[in-house]
């Protein structure tokens, strides 16, 4: 066949339609912004009764709860199919990444299914997030010694 892998890579690139970046960005901006706006509304609501740190914590909890409910109902995935990073980046996206495998792998049982695979997607974020915070902690401690 008259075809080389490197020239084929160029052919594939030409033939593959790119993502609609402008439209995707608008979706991500407005949906992501909308989720953050909802968070702020919730925070103002909680501030009526609680101090700022507690209101912030309750806001996170409420968003995670709402995301879990929407995930199980299948709504979050439908929104994310349009919004992309707009639903992935906020805390609701993280909740979706934990709840969705928990639901999906329940078919394999509570322990080998849900239990073992609940962090299949969020696991790397948790592992490297923890490692990064430990490294930063050591650095922070060393900076304190010097300063």
């Amino acid at each position, binding site marked *: 066949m008259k075809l080389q892998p490197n020239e084929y890579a160029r052919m594939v690139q030409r033939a593959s339609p790119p993502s609609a970046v402008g439209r995707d960005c608008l979706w991500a901006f407005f949906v992501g912004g909308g989720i953050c706006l909802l968070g702020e509304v919730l925070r103002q609501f909680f501030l009526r009764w609680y101090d700022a740190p507690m209101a912030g914590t309750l806001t996170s909890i409420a968003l995670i709860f709402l995301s879990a409910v929407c995930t199980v109902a299948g709504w979050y995935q439908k929104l994310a199919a349009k919004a992309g990073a707009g639903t992935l980046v906020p805390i609701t996206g993280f909740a979706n990444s934990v709840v969705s495998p928990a*639901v999906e792998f329940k078919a394999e049982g509570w322990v080998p299914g849900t239990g073992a695979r609940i962090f299949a997607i969020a696991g790397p974020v948790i592992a490297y997030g923890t490692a990064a915070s430990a490294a930063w902690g050591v650095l922070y401690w060393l900076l304190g010694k010097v300063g």
Partner: protein
Amino acid sequence: MVTRKDDTILFDRPPVIAAWAAAGGKKEGEGPLAKAFDLLVQDASFAGEGCANWEQAESLLQQKAAAACLRKGGVSRKEIDLVLAGDLQAQCTASNYALRALGAPYAGVYGACSTMAETLALAACLAAGGMARQLLAMTSSHFCAAERQFRTPLVYGAKRTPTAQWTATAAGACLLRAPGQRGVRVRSVTFGRVQDYAVRDINNMGAAMMPAAASTLLRYFAASGTEPADFDAVFTGDLGAVGSALLGEQMAREGVPLPNHRDCGCLLYDAACQDVQAGGSGAGCSAAVLCAQILPALQRGDLRRVLLVATGALMSQTTFLQGESIPGIAHCVELERGEDA
């Protein structure tokens, strides 16, 4: 009785496809081929029929396609000498469990999305060689079972790229008989060679599989002394919009343009309004298009002679994560309307 030219096996006395059936889910029932399916279900989880998970649901879908095919062929399962079946689930379990219920002699086949042509080709060889009188060739795929195995959980929020393809929830079954009987004739089969042109994007399977389709077609045309104009249509299985465009470009470069090319992945859904990105895929996609559109058209006489070139991407989740490129395969089956069909 059988002539071999290069990779192509030509049957002097062609075995026949005597009956066929296609089953599909909700999205397939909203597509352009809806009316041609033998069975469409609104709820492809089959929860109402006791299925506890997607894997069982796919198996039941395949069983239903097999039952419909046997019914249309007027044969009982006891009269089947061999079933060749495969699917996308690890270890081909959808087929394994379907055959647990069917109880016929069974050989499992894995060719990813090329499985329909592969089982059909193998079954044709066995029927032509007198090793079996009646065989079933069948495959299935299920969107939900494939997503959880190859991609992410169903309710995980992710955006699909425009080059991605949608795994069909569909199954197709064909009843093959020894030469000399009524049905659509299998004139020749060509088993493909694995082609790998270093495509690593799991969301661009059409591009990964195109070289395999082109390679098999070129070998077939050279060996059989035919050209695309000798056929009413050349159907590829699941190249989608991107792979189809690439195939057109490559075949033109080879000096064998394919004006009558159609792709099962583009036929099963209406890409403009069904949100399937580049088109359909999955072992059940070409199986369903074969059984719902191609074989009925050959029977009616709307088509007289066609090629079905089903393509498969032969990677696994493991090899993909290890950074391996995606090897493709394509098997070709030449189908012809029988004079008495």
